[in-house]
């Protein structure tokens, strides 16, 4: 029974998803909106309930399969917030999407439950199953507008690359199991040093990294990102950009610091290299983009790089910075995608030309997009700035021990400068773009989306001005991971 209580948050999300799936069968289309709001309210309740958990150290359930600590809770709250925004976004734009709104909601809830399980995975079997729960539901969510060719194509690309990465993940798990004889994280952590030298274990861990790298969209596992971001429905893209990426990071951090701490020194150069390449690739490829969603796809690759710098420092400060960065990135990306969803609905396009004159058609949307872009570019006082600042500070501190970090720091700073160019290209298109022949009537934003956009903007500002509350939470989370 105690096990079920520990797993209560995921259980509640799963039950909500199942209930939505069943209820949707027997309700009228008018009630469908209410169903969405009901699901969002339930998530809100679950979010509040998460503060009732006060884990003393790490608590295990189901024979050590499942771990609950501050670190897991931090990410669970993160995923729940992301889930609420995504549901709000999907309810707000529902009439534009064809049928199956109930299925969209319940699939999003299942993906959310999968992400929350990722945060608590303490066994390679649960790691695999929860990661696949996220990936397989996302195959459907990406291809949800199945009569739109771009959506379908994106889904197929995601499917092939995703299945390839999970094949690597599974083989990695098989090799790790072969070298150590266990799938349990605690047993893996307490293995004698002689076992840790096994080549098979290293290869297995490397394959595991391929699987996680796919989720994080880090170079060289990033090929899917731009196409999938562009083709998927905007609410899916938003969820993919925050939720799926964070799921990769939560697992990476846990495996790196808690399960196989020997990897810390072995993977140092790997992590640094991947971080530097991700930033360089994301930033350089984003320059010529004209589609906003595709631009954010490349930006997501670059952001994975910044997050990986934080992880690569292997210090508590770096991990805290990465956790804070993710929180800021969450609201920033959500704000951007709310605007993109509305613009897509009204113009059917998401390129820069369709943004022209947006500040006249809807000042709120223009402000929201500007907030998001300024935050992404890393301008004070918004959340994006402080996230980058913390990451770079941690890298500077790590540089004393390992000079390679100074190079990484250089790449990161150059990346920020280059990214100013294209982020401000978007802002320029919004305020100074020349509208073409398209009708320039005002855009009416539905109230759920207005609420979501206001909340996201306030959160971006609040995180940037008063970062202490989140960094304290992040520090607590990192401490429970055993990092000093």
């Amino acid at each position, binding site marked *: 029974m105690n096990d079920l209580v520990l797993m209560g948050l995921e259980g509640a999300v799963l039950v909500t998803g*199942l209930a939505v*799936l*069943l209820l949707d*069968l027997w309700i009228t289309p008018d009630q469908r909106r209410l169903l969405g709001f009901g699901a969002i309210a339930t998530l809100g309740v679950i979010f509040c309930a998460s503060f009732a958990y006060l884990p003393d150290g790490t608590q295990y359930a189901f024979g050590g399969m499942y771990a609950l600590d501050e670190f897991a809770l931090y990410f669970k709250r993160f995923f729940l917030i992301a889930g609420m925004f995504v549901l709000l976004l999907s309810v707000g734009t529902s009439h534009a999407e064809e049928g199956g709104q109930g299925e969209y909601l319940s699939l999003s809830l299942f993906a959310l439950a999968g992400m929350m399980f990722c945060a608590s995975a303490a066994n390679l079997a649960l790691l695999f199953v929860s990661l696949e729960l996220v990936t397989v539901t996302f195959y459907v969510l990406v291809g949800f507008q199945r009569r739109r060719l771009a959506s379908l194509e994106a889904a197929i690309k995601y499917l092939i690359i995703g299945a390839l990465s999970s094949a690597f993940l599974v083989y990695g798990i098989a090799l790790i199991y072969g070298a150590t004889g266990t799938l349990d994280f605690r047993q893996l952590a307490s293995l004698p040093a002689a076992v840790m030298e096994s080549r098979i274990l290293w290869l297995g861990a490397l394959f595991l990294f391929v699987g996680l790298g796919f989720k994080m969209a880090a170079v060289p596992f990033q090929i899917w990102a731009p196409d999938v971001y562009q083709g998927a429905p905007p609410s899916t893209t938003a969820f993919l950009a925050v939720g799926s990426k964070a799921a990769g990071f939560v697992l990476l951090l846990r495996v790196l610091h808690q399960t196989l701490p020997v990897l810390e020194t072995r993977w140092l150069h790997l992590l640094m290299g991947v971080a530097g390449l991700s930033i360089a690739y994301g930033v350089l490829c984003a320059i010529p983009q004209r589609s906003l969603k595709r631009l954010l796809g490349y930006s997501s690759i670059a952001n994975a790089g910044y997050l990986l710098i934080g992880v690569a420092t292997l210090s508590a400060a770096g991990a805290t910075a990465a956790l804070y960065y993710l929180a800021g990135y969450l609201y920033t990306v959500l704000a951007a995608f709310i605007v993109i969803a509305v613009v897509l609905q009204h113009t059917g396009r998401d390129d820069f030309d369709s943004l022209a004159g947006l500040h006249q058609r809807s000042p709120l949307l223009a402000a929201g997009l500007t907030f998001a872009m300024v935050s992404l570019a890393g301008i004070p006082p918004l959340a994006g700035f402080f996230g980058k600042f913390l990451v770079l500070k941690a890298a500077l501190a790590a540089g004393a021990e390992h000079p390679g970090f100074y190079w990484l720091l250089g790449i990161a700073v150059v990346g920020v400068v280059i990214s100013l160019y294209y982020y401000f290209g978007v802002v320029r298109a919004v305020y100074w773009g020349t509208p073409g022949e398209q009708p320039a009537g005002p855009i009416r934003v539905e109230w759920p989306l207005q609420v979501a956009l206001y909340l996201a903007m306030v959160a971006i500002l609040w995180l940037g001005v008063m970062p202490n509350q989140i960094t304290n939470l992040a520090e607590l989370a990192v401490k429970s991971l055993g990092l000093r």
Partner: protein
Amino acid sequence: MTEQTQSYLFLAVLLGVAVAFPLVMLGLARLWATVYSPAKPGPAKAAPYECGLESTGDAWVQLRSGYYLYAIVFLIFDVEALFLLPFAVAFTSLPVGAFVAILVFLLLLVEGLVWAWQKGVLEWN
């Protein structure tokens, strides 16, 4: 020569015979065919055999998309039954919790079935 290599020698001889025997037979049959029944292809001979009836239409028929839905639904339910097998084997020695867990699992499958039914996936028309 040790006993083990002798047994391998035996295997090698067996393999040689196993290859040679069908080759000889096939060769003889081929010889027989060239002497007594030279090939005379014709449209009637090339037609697919359908129990003696005149063949109609093409073998490459397009299947209805409903067929795929059926197949996919079948695939899921078929494979998920995999979990029931070890449960059934160890049933007598399991605690009540395991029974409840498998019941929940079955209920999930039932929900899937209800959903598919209500969506009309199971109607064949």
